[in-house]
Structures are given as structure tokens and as C-alpha cells.
């Protein structure tokens, strides 16, 4: 059987830019890092990887996250090149 739509092979990995701030940057010892994840990936996948890094066990269970400069849930999918930020409790104003 022939279909008119060819299945496109999903890329096997995605690379995202991860940003940490304030107390989280101090705990993990970096402010910016690239992480490569198995596809498909979500913000939750990024958090799982971060927790395996030194100091990653100090991240809270449900930190605030952002994807490409907007607040995002952990379930939100990430694609190659995304900027994912993990945000300590906000204290503006």
C-alpha cells in the first residue's frame, strides 16, 4: 500500500540552551549550558537532565520554567534551539 505522505524520521536528539539564575545558578555552578536530549523532549526532560548534574538535587520539585522568553509548563515540548530558563522564586517589585 502506497500513501501520499512520507513519514519524516524524527531527529533522534534536540539541543537546547539552558539558563539558570540567582540561587539556582549558584547551586549548580553555571548560568548557561547547552543540553542535548533524546527526542521527543519536554521541559520536564530538561529538568530531569539538570537533576543529574552536580548540585541538581537542590532544584525544587516544581521550579518555574520559561521557554523562549515566556512562562511554560513542564509538559511543554521543546525543539532544537529553544532557550529554556529555570527561574528561582521571583522577587521583583
Amino acid at each position: 500500500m502506497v500513501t501520499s505522505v512520507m513519514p519524516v524520521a524524527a531527529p533522534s536528539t534536540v539541543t537546547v540552551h539552558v539558563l539558570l539564575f540567582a540561587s539556582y545558578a549558584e547551586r549548580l555552578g553555571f548560568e548557561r549550558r547547552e543540553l542535548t536530549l533524546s527526542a521527543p523532549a519536554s521541559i520536564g526532560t530538561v529538568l530531569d537532565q539538570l537533576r543529574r548534574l552536580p548540585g541538581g538535587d537542590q532544584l525544587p520539585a516544581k521550579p518555574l520554567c520559561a521557554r523562549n522568553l515566556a512562562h511554560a509548563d513542564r509538559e511543554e515540548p521543546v525543539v532544537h534551539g529553544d532557550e529554556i530558563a529555570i527561574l528561582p522564586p521571583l522577587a521583583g517589585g
Partner: protein
Amino acid sequence: MGFLTHRPIDLAALLAAAAAPDRGGVASFLGQVRNHHSGRAVLRLDYSAYGPMAEAECGRIAAEAESRWNVAVALRHRVGSLAIGDTAVAVVAASAHREEAFAACRYVIEEVKRRVPVWKREFYADGTVAWVDPTATLQHVQ
């Protein structure tokens, strides 16, 4: 012009930016650095931000207020090192009706606190330093 600034916030400039001859009611809010927090004497503090997202989020909040009420909004948040009494954030909302000006001003400051990625590090009189966590009852003293 950006929403974040390293320099002292110029309220007069924000009032001029939001004011107009047909908007006679102007509500403002200033958040100023307090000399105490959770019972401890504060000497100064540093504000840091996730700059590009903070700019984007401030822009979204101002736009939301301006679409929800008939107002013009001006907003600035300072970053860097601040002394007691310095203005950390300023919101101005100008409208033909004071109810709308107050409602929009209040909305903007609440959303700024809830959504804009800014952090502050307080330096206390006892020599300790802490990242402020408004969601916690105890501070993480370092």
C-alpha cells in the same frame, strides 16, 4: 525604550509618557527599598534579571492592562545595586476615569511581581546575604 534600567527611575518622565490631555486621572505605584525584611535590618540590595524575558513580560503586562482598561501605562523596573529608599519599580496608569487608572495600576504591579523574572539579594546589617524568596516563610541565608 526598555522596561529595565540600571539608572535611578525618573517618575516625572514616566508621568509625562503616560499623561495626555484627555486622561485626567493618573494612578501611580512606587516600590521602594525597605530597611527591613522579615525582621532583619537591610543595608542594600542587588536586583538581577533575566533581561530579555523581563522586557518581554513587562511589555505583555502593559499591553494587557491597556487592552483591558482605557489607560496608558508606563512601567520601569530597576536592576543593579540599590540603597534603602531607592525606587525599584514604578508603574503609572493614566485614564479619563480614576477607577480605571487605579485598577490598571494595581493590575500591573501585581502581575509584575507574579511574572517578571527579577531576583533580589539582600545584604543585612549582620553581614549575611540572602536571595529573597517571597514564597518562603524562611529565607535561604548564605
